[in-house]
């Protein structure tokens, strides 16, 4: 089957999709976007979290055919997504993207070998600065979930953070640095306002 949908503002088409394939598989294996991770494929770990029409979901549990005509934001598009939101553009992910912006996420990464100089969203930078990244396999899903929480709740309590991220397992950090990172991002975002 063929599936057409929008990923990070760009129209995408996937062909010869097996009907049992998940959105996660299509992103990773057909569209060259392996940032969303395949850690459990049963909705228990959150590593594959993406935004589907603005809503965080486990992409492993969305059948590829179900995303026909819909908008998906993955970790690869998070920096641009946050930038547009900060600039007062569409923050929900449910509205269209201009062709100019559509090129954006692809063109970023001034030096993909160093990573330095890449423009990051507040939450991404906070994860690096706070030491919230170890093996990094849970990181993409956590970033998408945490970014969405801060969008809804810019001043979360610790219990709010824990509740919002309770669907994202991390095995390396013991979560303490992840808490630090989200607090840091919240503080930086409120300073910026």
């Amino acid at each position, binding site marked *: *089957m063929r599936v057409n949908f929008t990923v990070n503002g760009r129209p995408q088409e996937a062909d010869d999709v*097996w*009907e*049992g394939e*998940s959105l996660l598989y299509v992103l990773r294996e057909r569209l060259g976007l392996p940032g969303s991770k395949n850690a459990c*494929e*049963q*909705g*228990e770990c*959150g590593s594959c*979290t993406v935004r589907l029409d603005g*809503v*965080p*979901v*486990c992409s*492993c*549990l*969305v*059948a590829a*055919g*179900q995303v*026909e005509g819909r908008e998906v934001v993955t970790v690869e598009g998070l920096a641009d997504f946050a930038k547009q939101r900060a600039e007062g553009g569409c923050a929900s992910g449910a509205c269209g993207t201009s062709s100019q912006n559509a090129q954006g996420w692809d063109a970023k990464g001034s030096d993909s070998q160093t990573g330095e100089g890449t423009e990051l969203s507040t939450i991404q930078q906070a994860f690096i600065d706070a030491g919230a990244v170890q093996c990094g396999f849970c990181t993409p899903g956590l970033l998408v*979930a945490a970014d969405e929480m801060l969008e809804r709740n810019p001043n979360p309590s610790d219990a709010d953070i*824990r*509740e*919002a991220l*309770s*669907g*994202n397992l991390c095995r390396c950090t013991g979560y303490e640095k992840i808490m630090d990172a989200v607090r840091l991002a919240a503080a930086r975002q409120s300073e910026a306002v």
Partner: protein
Amino acid sequence: MDFLRPASWEEALAAKAEHPTAVPIAGGTDVMVEINFDHRRPEYLLDLNRIGDLCEWEVGEESVRLGASVPYTKIMENLRAELPGLALASHTVASPQIRNRGGVGGNLGTASPAGDAHPALLAAGAEVEVESVRGSRRIPIDAFYTGVKRNALAADELIRAVHVKKADGPQQFSKVGTRNAMVIAVCAFGLALHPETRTVRTGIGSAAPTPVRAKAAEEFLTAALEEGGFWDNGQIITPSVAKQFANLCSAACNPIDDVRGTASYRRHAVGVMARRTLTWTWESYRGARRLTEGAA
């Protein structure tokens, strides 16, 4: 495998009539796990995501008509006053990501005894609106669960909505899992006080082959509340009544030993939850009563 994408409810019914083995998929939170883990290879997947009506709800005079695909997140956020038990149950479902996708229709369709919505639906009193090309009918929740992961749906029927009675009194939901978030129920308990009819209803999850009500416990408590004049005098329920209610709820269980818990623990935990939720709802009832009296 074929992927059917009906654009309307009528198309969906037609597709289900043509392919009775088609597996409906909405939130995907049950079906996709089975596909990913190679437990199931349905001939047809019937995608219900394009039917917007399923994601809507209406608050009526007596009850709420809740579309089968209304995500748990929306129930938590929007229906706490009308359906407090179901809203509490919704909050215990898996993770935020799952609550954003899953809805009551999935719980009912799968009919797993561990589905979080069941005890709340049983306690509140609900009817499941199902439809096929042959017509529409409403199945009382008490008649809906017919066996382990089996329900009263005919092969050509789809779940369209549930009609849940609006709360006329306090409701509670409690679930035991061995983790503080994102956990499948070891067992669960729902309780609804119905001051208008001076009755109580219960629902028990994961402690019998199907979700069940503790009917003997309900009858006992209804009688005890009546006899003691509790509805009117608003007194604290005596510990012996609470204890007997808890014991009868435990006795309503018919659990098994499995990797998530022992039968003995399930019986015990259901009793504890029954006692606690009775205390919480009754305190809430007394509080509301005092407020009303104070206002009068």
